[in-house]
């Protein structure tokens, strides 16, 4: 490891590991992601240009790597069961938890990467639009639009199923 990347690993490695574990739901996958993220940094340390905080940069990198892994349907379902479904729990009149999870899986499985990225930032991380904009690299207004798009898609999906 170069000195800078080694230092970042020691000071921020836990951020990547915690986030990956949170998104993927298991420690083994999270540790794979930790390695992937820092190997990528080693191959291109100049990618971090200091225009955001190290943590913001690592959040983005970690989400990207996790989203790639989430293309695996099984892993994606795990994420949705634990994170997105509780945030959008249906009221008591609606479906069982299992049905809800299936709906949410179906929804997020259909989201393009950018929207999935935003959905995670908003519904899992609880980020503000400003923070999402910094993550995605867009304006705050566009971040708000993306959040609304994800929200509408989720609501439509749930309405159809009720």
């Amino acid at each position: 490891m170069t000195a800078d990347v080694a230092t970042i690993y020691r000071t921020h490695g836990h951020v990547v590991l915690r986030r990956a574990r949170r998104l993927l739901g298991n420690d083994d996958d999270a540790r794979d992601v930790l390695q992937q993220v820092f190997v990528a940094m080693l191959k291109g340390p100049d990618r971090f240009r200091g225009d955001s905080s190290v943590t913001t940069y690592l959040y983005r990198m970690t989400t990207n790597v996790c989203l790639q892994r989430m293309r695996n349907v099984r892993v994606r379902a795990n994420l949705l069961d634990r994170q997105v479904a509780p945030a959008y729990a249906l009221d008591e009149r609606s479906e069982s938890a299992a049905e809800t999870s299936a709906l949410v899986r179906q929804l997020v499985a259909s989201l393009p990467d950018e929207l999935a990225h935003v959905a995670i930032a908003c519904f899992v991380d609880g980020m503000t639009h400003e923070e999402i904009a910094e993550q995605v690299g867009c304006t705050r207004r566009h971040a708000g639009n993306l959040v609304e798009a994800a929200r509408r898609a989720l609501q439509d999906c749930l309405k159809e199923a009720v």
Partner: protein
Amino acid sequence: MICPSELRLDQLVVGELAVAVARETRTHVAECLPCRRRVADIERERVAFVHALPRRRAPWVAGISAAAAAAAIVVVATRGGGEEPGNRTKGSGEHMSVYVEHRGHVHQASLDERVEPGDKLQMTLTLREARHISLFGTDATGATTVYFEGRLDAGTDIPLPNSIILDGTLGRESYVVLFCAAPLTACTTDTFGVVK
């Protein structure tokens, strides 16, 4: 203030927030039990992560003065031959000096030197005659790590081949060097526990 995001709390823990934002976030966290728990979780994971990192040895890259210097950290020496085994401190004719690289600057360690995670320690030894050497350290958790074992010829301020990069384990840490006339066949890590 609404509860901060995970990103904000992570930035708070690693010290990346601007002063005003950090103050605002800390104020909220102090008054919000769920957020206090979130921060405690992050801090717990940070400590666990750092603690799990191996104590790494790395080539010493910073230039250090070759001037002889007094030992700075307590040195416990056991000597082979006819002398009564026991603990010694500096001044026996064989001693260890310690240099610290802190944020790119190198200085000789003083007694009870305060160091930080990421700092590098470089030990040098002064030997009147060839000795078999073992260097190990015990951190605040009681974990003992062997950093060097081997034979060195006589000389002044001989740098050991590797420096020590400190991890995030906080607390007092002691380094012990054994100067032995005979090979250290009996000096296993278990033995070090007794020596300490």
